[in-house]
């Protein structure tokens, strides 16, 4: 199963007006690949030299913040109250 298929079963409150993570698309490819592998939700995608990232689906775990603050991740905040992932089981 891909991450996307797995995220499909989760309950999530999308915030259309706010991206809680901001990325630096010019970051070094090695640093980008670290996040491609480490993000449990698989939200960092690197194809043909282009980095894309989607906040929808994020577990808000903060691992990308610790791994790559100041490199790939230029800003990391929590989503607004009530938004984002909502674990029904946890």
């Amino acid at each position, binding site marked *: 199963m891909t991450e996307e298929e*797995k995220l499909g*079963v989760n309950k999530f409150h999308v915030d259309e007006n706010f991206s809680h993570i901001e990325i630096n698309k010019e970051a070094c490819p090695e640093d980008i690949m670290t996040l491609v592998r480490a993000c449990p939700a698989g939200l960092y995608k690197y194809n043909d030299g282009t980095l894309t990232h989607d906040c929808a689906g994020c*577990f808000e*775990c*903060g691992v990308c*913040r610790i791994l790559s603050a100041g490199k790939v991740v230029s800003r990391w905040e929590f989503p607004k*109250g009530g938004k984002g992932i909502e674990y029904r*089981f*946890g």
Partner: protein
Amino acid sequence: MSEEKFDVIIVGGGIAGSVTALLLARAGLEVVMIERGNYSGAKNMTGGRLYSHCFNGIIPDFAEIAPIERKVMHERVSMMTETSNFTFDYTSDRLAQPGKESYIVLRGIFDRWLAEQAEKAGAMAVNGILVENLIIRDGKVCGVIAGEEQMFADTVVLADGANSQLTTKAGLQRKPVTPHQIAIGAKELFELDEKKIEGRFNLAPGEGSAWLFAGWPSGGMTGGGFIYTNKASVSLGIVVTAAEFINARKSVNELLEQFKAHSAVKPLIEGSKLIEYSGHMVAEGGYGMLPRLYSDGVVAVGDAAHLVINAGYTVRGMDLAVGSAAAAAAAIISAKSRGDFSEKSLSMYKRLLDDSFVMRDMRRFRKYPRFMENRRIFNEYPEMADEIFAGVFVTDGAPQASMFSKIFKTAKKNGLRNLAKDCIKGVSTL
């Protein structure tokens, strides 16, 4: 909101926050607990179990009234390679002794219940609000900022979890957390009929199994796999040190997929349905990673204080969250009686914590995080177990060597000196 002032503001409504709120409310303090999820537990997950001893004196009958999944009656530990798996399985009446037993819980369900207990005791719980910053005046934390609102209190309790950024703002987390100090936890939850769970895991009704795996699930990296039986679902996941992904060959999801596909795992979840996929940061640096725990007007509890013990065969955090909440609440109640919420006054929290099981165990396992960085545990030793047991059990008609010589031959190949060193180190750090 006007300049309303509470005795205590608690940021985060998980286990540490809810227990702190419960105890402070019982003592008659005016407490507000602010949770960013729409309910307590909405942002929380666990790949672990809760040791009941921590609730002694707080909610003594918690096992009867709390929404727990199953009581752990089987402790299983496996060494797994791509094509083999060696498991030991311990079961005993001793695991069921009152006050010493442990329970599998699901945090989205359990935390919600726990927060309700705090509310029943008189704490005010506010959900769906994110605390963005702290109000700090003359070096003293005196309140929180949420959106346009400011709220004030004598003491602010940071119970905002492993990914807390407020502990840095409060000056408690002075050095940035490094990728070596944290792990990534990822978990899949599979819905499965109760009877099937009990059959597949050899469990009596209501009993559960805690199962940890070394080797293949983490792809030989520092970490491991886990499987826990819930009431009508199975939790399966991995925990791997974040720094390992800097040069890894596989992603978190690839590791999960290969773990699930292993012949020793696949039949356990056969025919089940994925109902949730979750992830979380785990603070694994141990005693050496602890931030400062208190300052003027502020204390940190639970995961926000990085109170986690990973001893390989068991991972603890939830009972430490309860223990730290109890110590923090006692210190705040005492500070209130003196009307003094300074750093010096709140230092009682650290003293109480030092004398409690929380710090006794944190200190006892302080060398363990370094020991766990030893790659042999996740590579050579599972391979060794495979070779030894293949030697013992695989029979092809060729002349059989003695059991001892088989084990000795395999051990020698991996270096007797390393093996002896790791055994001694492993035993002495535990």
